[in-house]
């Protein structure tokens, strides 16, 4: 029993944090909002050089062959930087999904390209009518009935659905499913879809930790600078207590998210419920942080010019991505109350389970 990260894992987190501070300042994030694709292949290539998209790609396919416990801290940094780019689908969901399809040609074609940053993969799933980043994807993994299909960019029609977070571009995607595009069906497809949703939701949860922390940090910085009645507004208890409350929420979401990463990496029986609990905790914390950060910034926060809404929008869009909050809450409730899925009480063993 050791609930913590290794020095190497913390070091990699620090490396990625410094990389993002240099390469992904908020001006860069906002710059991409007005670009045509919302994507910077140059930035993505640099991120690949640091190892992020290839982290889950097996070493045999040119990746680092690491696991979700290694990745979770980096996703937290991605949230802190409001990183634009397909990190959830391409770096978090696609590599294990492609590796599990048992289609060696597909794996050889796409996994090394994910690792070196030259390919973007979009992943659709039955919980959402939209596919994020379909406009920049080279490969799309899409659901059709109880099947999963792998479709290349030139075979899909993607209709842009402008949304509230200009960094996360949503599309409705149409394609012709065929035997040639089908990569999984039936029970296998169902199992892989659940695993993909679990990874996507873990990714959202981890990003939300970073988003929530960043919103707190922005609000604290502002509350220390802004003076009213002759003193910094951060000296008022009304401000202190609001921020303390969101600090509690983010702190208590953190260990839940880390446990979920561990549950996926080890594929434990309670994986899906652990992930849903993480998505709910982290998303609720980030949403609360967004509300509070806006309130602390006052009218200034309500402007387009001030940066706080960059992270507010991310908190809102991640709350919907990879299973809405209500879907994940219901998954936990069904498991805990009805026993629909395995759910364990951590450490503490309930009577009758021994």
């Amino acid at each position, binding site marked *: 029993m050791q609930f913590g990260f290794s020095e190497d894992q913390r070091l990699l987190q620090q490396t990625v944090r410094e990389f993002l501070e240099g390469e992904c300042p908020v001006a860069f994030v906002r710059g991409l909002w007005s670009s045509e694709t919302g994507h910077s292949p140059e930035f993505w290539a640099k991120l690949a050089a640091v190892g992020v998209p290839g982290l889950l790609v097996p070493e045999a396919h040119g990746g680092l062959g690491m696991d979700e416990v290694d990745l979770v801290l980096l996703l937290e940094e991605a949230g802190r930087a409001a990183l634009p780019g397909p990190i959830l689908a391409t770096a978090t969901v696609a590599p294990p999904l492609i590796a599990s399809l048992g289609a060696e040609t597909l794996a050889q074609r796409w996994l090394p390209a994910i690792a070196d940053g030259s390919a973007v993969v979009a992943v659709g799933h039955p919980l959402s009518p939209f596919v994020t980043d379909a406009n920049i994807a080279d490969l799309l993994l899409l659901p059709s009935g109880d099947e999963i299909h792998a479709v290349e960019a030139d075979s899909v029609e993607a209709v842009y659905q402008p949304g509230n977070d200009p960094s996360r571009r949503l599309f409705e995607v149409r394609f012709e499913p065929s035997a040639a595009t089908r990569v999984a069906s039936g029970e296998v497809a169902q199992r892989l879809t659940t695993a993909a949703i679990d990874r996507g939701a873990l990714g959202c949860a981890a990003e939300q930790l970073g988003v929530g922390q960043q919103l707190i940090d922005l609000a604290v910085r502002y509350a220390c600078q802004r003076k009213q009645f002759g*003193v910094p507004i*951060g*000296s008022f208890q009304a401000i202190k207590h609001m921020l*303390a409350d969101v*600090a509690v929420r983010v702190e*208590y*979401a953190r*260990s839940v998210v880390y446990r979920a990463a561990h549950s996926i990496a080890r594929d434990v029986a309670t994986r899906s419920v652990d992930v849903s609990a993480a998505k709910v905790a982290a998303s609720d914390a980030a949403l609360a942080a967004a509300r509070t950060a806006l309130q602390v910034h006052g009218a200034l926060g309500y402007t387009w010019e001030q940066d706080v809404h960059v992270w507010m929008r991310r908190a809102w869009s991640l709350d919907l991505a990879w299973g809405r909050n209500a879907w994940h809450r219901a998954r936990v409730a069904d498991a805990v*109350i009805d026993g629909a899925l395995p759910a364990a009480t951590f450490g503490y063993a309930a009577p009758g389970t021994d």
Partner: protein
Amino acid sequence: MELRYTPEQEAFRKEARAWLAANVPSTPLPSLDTAEGFEAHRQWEKKLHAGGWAMVPWPVEYGGRGADLLEWLIFEEEYYRAGAPGRVNQNGIFLLGPTIMEFGTAEQRARYLPKMASSEEVWAQGWSEPNAGSDMAAIQATARIDGDAFVINGQKTWASRGAYADWLFGMFRTDPDSERHRGLTFILVPLDAAGVTVRPIEQLDGEAGFAEVFLDDVRVPLENQLGERGQGWQVAMATAGFERGLMLRSPARFQNTARKLVELYRETAAAAEPVDPGLRDAVARCWMDAEAYALNTYQTVSRLLSGGKIGAEASLNKIFWSELDVRMHEIALQLLGDRAELLPEAPSARGVGTWLDGFLFSLSGPIYAGTNEVQRNIIAERILGLPRK
């Protein structure tokens, strides 16, 4: 990161479970805030001590088991799982004990810890005074030095377990010219000393859980000082850290309540009358939060075992567990409907009264050990870095 127990930890769990199964009283003891219940709980502590389970993480020489904090968490899980009695000496074993280990002399450790572990001496807290509550630095009780003794005068209040305890710890002003946090000294006071008057206070549940303690020229030997003279505030902050943080409220307590709440929901939902549809979600959220608290504690313990320290983040804990505890009991009462107001002795209570007792007790959580508003100030100023003024 490795979230499985080692074979040694599993064996430890089995051993604890077996001992508790054989020794936990089959019927609940009377409330520890009655004279009879206090003694019954003291006897239970002696049994725990004789079995070697009273102070799992303490060194053997002080009456402990010499186990590490992870084993302590496992023991706590089994303790709540077994429905074992509340710890009558928690002020001693969870708060003062760790403080004496950190600040006490070798003589003090040998003098106080073994009798604390066996509950031969049960401790009360003496923090608050009538004019020093949340503003603890406003302490007025004095300790004047006269030869080889302190002469203590003043009044402490809300002294938990004060009605029946043997000893009291607290801060007293040893420098009469001092102000606020300076000039205070942490002193251990026997409650049977001449000049001590204890007046029990009835709590919200009608029992004497705390007391007023009047100190009138009470002579206490100088060696009862814990830590440096005039450094009482620093010693007290460490004690408060233990209280808000790790030791006082181990996660199993809340996981146990969450489990019972899930069971209560299942029973209620199975009955004919429809259940408020929002309560299903609320129950699941409580379960998730109790898990979150457990996970956070395991993370903290892992950090402490690799040399970390517990600091201001104890204030985050205190808010989280105290508000979760209130919420769980509020939801339970909503599930119970009309029977929620029945006391345990009501003929139709059929066990529901313990939820009401638990609810009343949970309401003290956001108040004791420093109100949650004080904790929010600590979080804002010491963790987030917001200005004091």
